[in-house]
Structures are given as C-alpha cells and as structure tokens.
C-alpha cells in the first residue's frame, strides 16, 4: 500500500514538473504578450496543483498536508486574480493582441 502511494506521488510530481517546464517554455517562446500569459497559466494551475498533490501524498494525514492545501488554495485564488489584473492593465494601456484589427499599437515580439 505504501509503495502504491509512493508511486502515485512520484507520478504526480513528475507530471507537475513536466507541466511547469512546458508552461515556462511557452512563456519564453510564445509570440505576443497575451499568448505568453496564457502559457504561464499552465505553470500556475496544473503544474502547481500536481506538484502540491504529489507532496500531499508524501506527507499523509498531518499538519504538513494542511499547509500544502493552504498553499494550493492561495495559488488557486491569487493566480487568476493576478492574471486578470495583468490583462486589464495591458488592455488599458492599449496593448493590442497580435491578431486584433489595428487599433492601438500592436504588441511587439
């Protein structure tokens, strides 16, 4: 049983690491600001959630698991808020998406 939980936890951590790296690659390689924001949200949601779930399986039922859940809730609520504020701020500063019809300056590479 313990080996099973261990295996599940390692699988979750490996998947979370992979998603975190994929999101960061998108953050570096995507062509304009809004697509980069989209890619970065992969790191913030799936990567963080899978990594925290894997660590929670390692911790078992304890205070450590509760703290990990608190971190998860923190990421779950604050990351979309920050992304939303970022998009609003960028739109207000007339940063147009790459494929938008010309109105305001197009966002550069």
């Amino acid at each position: 049983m313990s080996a099973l939980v261990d295996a599940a936890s390692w699988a979750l951590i490996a998947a979370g690491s992979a998603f975190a790296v994929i999101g960061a690659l998108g953050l570096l390689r995507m062509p304009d600001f809004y697509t980069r924001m989209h890619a970065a949200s992969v790191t913030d949601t799936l990567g963080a959630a899978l990594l925290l779930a894997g660590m929670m399986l390692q911790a078992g039922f304890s205070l450590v698991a509760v703290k990990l859940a608190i971190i998860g809730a923190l990421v779950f609520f604050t990351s979309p808020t920050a992304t939303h504020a970022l998009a609003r701020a960028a739109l207000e500063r007339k940063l147009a998406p790459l494929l938008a019809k010309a109105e305001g300056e197009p966002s550069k590479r």
Partner: protein
Amino acid sequence: MFTFAIAALLVVLGLALARAVLGPTVFDRAQAGNTIGTAVMLMLAAIGFLNGRPDFLDLAITYGLLNVVGTIAVLKFFRHGDLGAPGEEEPSR
C-alpha cells in the same frame, strides 16, 4: 525525486528570468515575476521535503502572500501611475 522537481523548477526559473530580461513590455516582466514567485513557492515546499524540514512550508505561504500583494501593487502603479488611485468600483448611477 524531490531533486527532480527542484531541477525542473530551476529550469522554470531560468526560462521566466529570460522572459523578464527579454520582455518587450513591462507587462511581460510583471508576468515573468509572477511566474518566478509561483516557482519559488513550490521550490520552497520541495526543499522542505528534501531536507526533512517541513517548516519551510510556512515560508512558502508567506512568500506567496507577499508575491500576490507585490504583483497587484506593481500593476496598479503601472496602470494608474499612482498607488493611491481609487479602486475599480462600478460607476454609480
């Protein structure tokens, strides 16, 4: 295995740092800073497990709170040019 997670998060940190250095607009840099904050928070948790000292989780929680407050403050500054600007209430009718 926690070493693997930490290595992956270090790669994330490097890529986000590259975007923060390259990023043409200030919003790219803010987004990269936000991603760096998330990655550091996860890395603190993983380092705590690696060393067998889960006390590091408290540091991770604190860092996450500071990270979100900092991001919102920076965004508000670049949006209004003033940290004391009024918030975004719906216009009253």
